[in-house]
Structure formats: C-alpha cells, structure tokens
C-alpha cells in the first residue's frame, strides 16, 4: 500500500534516534580532539628525518647526498652540505646537512624522497595536526623540526622500522667484518714480514688469523637484539641498494622504481663512499 515504505523508514530512523542514546557502538563518529582513532600503520603524510641515539644533530642519518632534493617532483626540499664531516652509524666520517628544509605547503606526500634515499634517513611521518597561523614560516620545516628519533619511527611504523634496522645492522656487521678482515690481514702481513726466516711460526699464525676472521661474522649478527635472522642473510650477500625492499604504499607505481634506477645510474660512486678506506 502507498506509504508503507515511509512508515518503515520512519521506524528505522526512530530506532536509530533512540539507539544513539543507549548504545555507544552505534555512534559512527569520534569526538575528535578528545578521542582519536589509531592511525593505520600504512598512514603517511609528510617526510621526517630519522636520527639514532639521543642527540638529534649528531645522530642524523642524512649525509646530504641531495638525491631526495633532486628527485622531489614539486621541489620542496632544500639541502645545504656541511664543510666538515661527522661519523655516521658505521663510524665512517660523512658530510651532513647544515640546512635541510621541507616546505610542507609544497610537498605532495608522494614518498619518492623516502624511496630514493639509500641511507634510510628520510621516512614518512603520520603527524597531521600541522595547522599554523604563520603561512610562510610555519609550513617551512627546518631540520630540527623534521628530526625524529628512531624510536619514534618504530612507534609509528613498527614493521617497516624493524626491517630498516635489520638492514642497517647487517650493513654495519658487513663493514665491521671487512674492517676486521683487513686489519687481520694487515696484522698477518706485519707479523709475516719480520719473521720470514722462521717458517714454522708463520704457518702457525696464518690459520689462526683466518679462523678468527671467519668467526667474527658468525657471532656479530647474534649480538644485534632486534635483528631477525632472515633479514640479515640476503643483506650480507647482495649490494645494499638492490636488497632494499620498496617500503609501503609507493611501491605500485612505476615512478619510484625508475627514480631509484636513475638514481643508481646517476650516482654510481655514492655507495662506494660508505666502504671504509683502509
């Protein structure tokens, strides 16, 4: 009969009206500034700079290679290189950014800077309450405002951060292993040089040095607390840039991939810089 649907509809809305006073589960909205929903792990909006340790300035992973600056499509990153060097996470002296500005009013949150960074230094943040009454200065974030600790990174993107940590630890272990092997070789050479006459002593010393060098990589990964065994294995064998999985949501487009490849082609010397000069 005519009007039946209207009555049904009225009953439904009446049910909703009454129910909204009774049950909290019915409510579809959240009282935002007081309550907030947890952000999904894949959420991201603007980049930030990761630092290790306590001091943000010392621990900044960025080495001012300016790849992100070059790759940034809307050109919202501005970097100035330092004249001096400071040691990075493997203890090798590196240049660092004296200036690292991101204009978030220009940034389009594409995550390309994150994908091209070979040093895991720039990551995507989840902070969204960035409103400011200063239209020009307030949206131009300098490196101090961009710096966030690795713990913070673990907090917002746990899975991704663990992967990154594992990769970095693997690299560090590799570097240390090489350094140790080189040192041992040098020591063996040094030991061998004066004792050329006494052949028996040399024969005893050489195997000892090589076994020591082999034992080092086996023990090193076990020392890293957070490192999953699976993550370290490929890292030890392949180059760091190739092993790096493309993180999160940006991996589906062709642009980040080409950017990464182009970057590799453009800066072939960059990864080599990280090798310790013995």
């Amino acid at each position: 009969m005519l009007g039946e649907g209207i009555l049904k509809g009225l009953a439904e809305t009446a049910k909703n009206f009454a129910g909204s006073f009774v049950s909290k589960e019915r409510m579809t909205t959240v009282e935002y500034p007081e309550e907030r929903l947890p952000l999904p792990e894949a959420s991201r909006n603007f980049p930030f700079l990761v630092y290790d340790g306590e001091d943000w300035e010392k621990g900044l992973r960025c080495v001012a290679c300016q790849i992100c600056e070059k790759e940034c499509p809307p050109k919202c990153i501005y970097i100035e290189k330092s004249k001096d060097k400071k040691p990075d996470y493997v203890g090798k002296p590196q240049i660092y950014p004296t200036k690292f500005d991101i204009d978030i009013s220009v940034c389009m949150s594409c995550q390309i800077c994150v994908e091209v960074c070979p040093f895991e230094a720039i990551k995507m943040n989840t902070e969204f309450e960035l409103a400011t009454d200063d239209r020009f200065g307030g949206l131009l974030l300098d490196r101090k405002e961009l710096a966030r600790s690795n713990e913070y990174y673990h907090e917002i993107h746990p899975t991704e951060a663990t992967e990154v940590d594992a990769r970095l630890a693997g690299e560090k272990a590799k570097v240390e292993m090489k350094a140790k092997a080189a040192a041992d070789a040098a020591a063996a050479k040094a030991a061998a040089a004066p004792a050329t006459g006494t052949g028996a002593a040399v024969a005893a010393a050489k195997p000892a040095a090589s076994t020591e060098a082999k034992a080092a990589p086996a023990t090193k990964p076990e020392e890293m607390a957070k490192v999953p065994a699976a993550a370290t294995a490929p890292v030890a064998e392949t180059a760091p840039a190739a092993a790096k999985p493309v993180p999160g949501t940006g991996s589906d487009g062709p642009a980040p991939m080409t950017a990464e490849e182009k970057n590799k082609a453009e800066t072939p010397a960059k990864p080599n810089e990280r090798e310790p000069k013995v």
Partner: protein
Amino acid sequence: MIGRLDQIFVLLKHWLLGYLPESWQTPVGVIISVACIVGLYPALFAVTTVLERKGVGRIQNRLGPNRVGPYGILQPMADGIKSLTKEDIVPTSADAVVHFLAPIILVVTVFMGFAVLPMGRNMVLVDMDAGLLFYFAMGASTELSVFMAGWSSRNKYSLLGAMRAVAQMISYEVALLLSSVVVVMMSGSLSLVKIVEAQNHYSYGLPHWFIFTPWGCAAFIMYAIAGTAETNRSPFDLPEGESELVAGYHTEYSGFKFALFFLGEYVAMFSISALGSTLFLGGWMAPVSWLQVVPSWIWFFGKLFVSMCVFIWLRGTLPRLRQDQLMNFAWKFVLPMCLLNLFVAGLWRFMGEGWLRWVVCSAILILAYVSIGREGMRRKKFGPRNYRYAE
C-alpha cells in the same frame, strides 16, 4: 488560580495597558502583541535549529553540534553572530531593489499569518471573521517573494530554484486549501477562533477534534503533505536541492539576508504547523478533559513542538523527490483525494448521527486511498525515446 495562569499573558497585557490613557490603549496593545509574536517565533526558530541539527544527527547516529555551550545549546547564537557579521553581497547584475525586498517580503508575510492564529484561550491578535482566508492570502505571498529572490539574483540556479518553488507551491497550495475547506464546511466559519471552539467539547473525556473523524483524518494527512511541500521542507525541498541547484532561489544571498530566508522558512513551518493544529488538532485544547487544568497556551506550543519534531523526523528519513514525482503526487494523488474528501465531508454532514456514517465514510476513503495509490502512483515503464525532428 488555574484560570489566571491560563490567561496570564492576557492579564499581563491588560495590567500594562491600565497605566496608559484610554485613547492609547488599543494601538499600544496591538504593538505589544505584535512585539511578542515577532520576538517569540525567532526565539523558537533558534531553538528549533539546534533541535533539528541534534535530532538529525541522532537519526544518523551522530551527536550533532556539541561544542558551543553545554551540549551545544548555544549553537544558534554562534550561527546568528556569524550570519550577522558576514558580508552582504549583491551581484552586480542583480536587480538590487527586488533582491533587497524579497527576504523582507517573505518574513513579513510569514509573520502576518500569525495575526489570526489563536495561541491560547483569548490569545489572538485579530479575531478576523475570514481568518483562514487571510492566512492563505498571506501564505500565498511567500511564493511571490521566492520568485522575486530567484528572478532578481540573475543566476540560472536561483531562477531554476524559483521556478521549481513556484510550480511546487502553486500545486500544493490547491491541496492545502481543499483539505482545509472541509473544516470550514463542518464548523461553518472561516474564523480560526470559531473553528477551535467548534472542536471544544469532550465526550467520555475525549475531545472532538476534527482529526478523529474519517474526513478529518484524511484531510489532516493531505494537509500535512501539502504543508510540508508548501514550506519547501524535505522531502519536498527541490527548490533548494543543493546537489543540483547550489542552494536554489537563495543562492545569491549572503549574510543577514540569507538568515532572513532561513528564518522565514522556519517561521513558515511554525505557522503551517500552528494552522494544522488549529484546524485538526483542536488548537489550544487539552487532549483529554481532565488535563484542562494545564494552561491552554502550553497545549498550543506543545502541539507546535510535536509537529516540529515530526518535520525533523521526516527530514531525517525521506530522500528528496524528483520533480516529476512531486508533480505526479500533487495532481494525481493529493488533489483527487482532497476532492473526494469534500464529498465525504458532505456525506458525513447529511447522514446524521450513528455508526453508519463512520463505516461508509471510512470505507470510501480507504478504498480511494488504496486504489488511487495503486493505480495513480504505479511506476511507469518508458521505452527509449524517439526524437522525430531533432536527431
């Protein structure tokens, strides 16, 4: 004591007028009454806006506004300040005079309707013999202001909204009048005070409201439908359908003029509801005889409140109609039902007392409702259109 409470506003006015010389009493009395009406209904409008926003929110399982003041009750003040301080923009190509006059005419004509509505025992501004006629004359002028607004804005959306509004309002004005005519037929008067008094008796403690008769019930339903359409309320809010017409006839209005349109719309809702309760729900009468101790104006405003709640409920429930559905409904369903109802009312009047007229009248109306609803409102199947001359 009870009688005094019932008449408290009347007595208050007389006591105030007692301090004035004889010749001043009538004009000052009128001014006081007008001031009361003009002050009261905008206040009710403010309350209703927050009630509506909270009510519709609850219907959609939200909380509604809850930031300004405790539970958001001060929201209308914030809205009011906002609309008063906004810039008043008049389009360069608009007809400035007509553009300026349209909201004023709307508000004035809407308020004029309250002059003849009894808001309690002895509480009526003018007890006009042709009160109902005056009311409808005033109600029809809102169409004028709507069209003035749409036409003077020189904006296609405004004009389309105004066209729709006029088409809709004229169609439903017919139904509104015809559904009210049965009340005039039965009470024998156009005076709204007399119409209320015609319903003012009880049997077995229950009132003789016109809604409790077959023809009254049918007329009330038709009146409610036509009244909703007349005030451009959802689901008949095509003239301001924001999804297709920006905001309809008041697209080009901003600031205080827009607030006036908003006010006019709500006051028109109050006035249509007040007239509906006067015609069919016994006006200021108590729903049961032993509740007559409660002052009459409380009943009047209580009925007003209930009908506003129903308006809000409907708005939260029903989707907007399409233009052809709207027109079909007006001319193919509401109008035939109203015409039939005139006949039924006459039948009721001449069949005399007894149960037979209840059966006959109810049967006719229900039969008509079902059959017109089935046949007239059947969904039509249209094939692909063939254009003979334009290809």
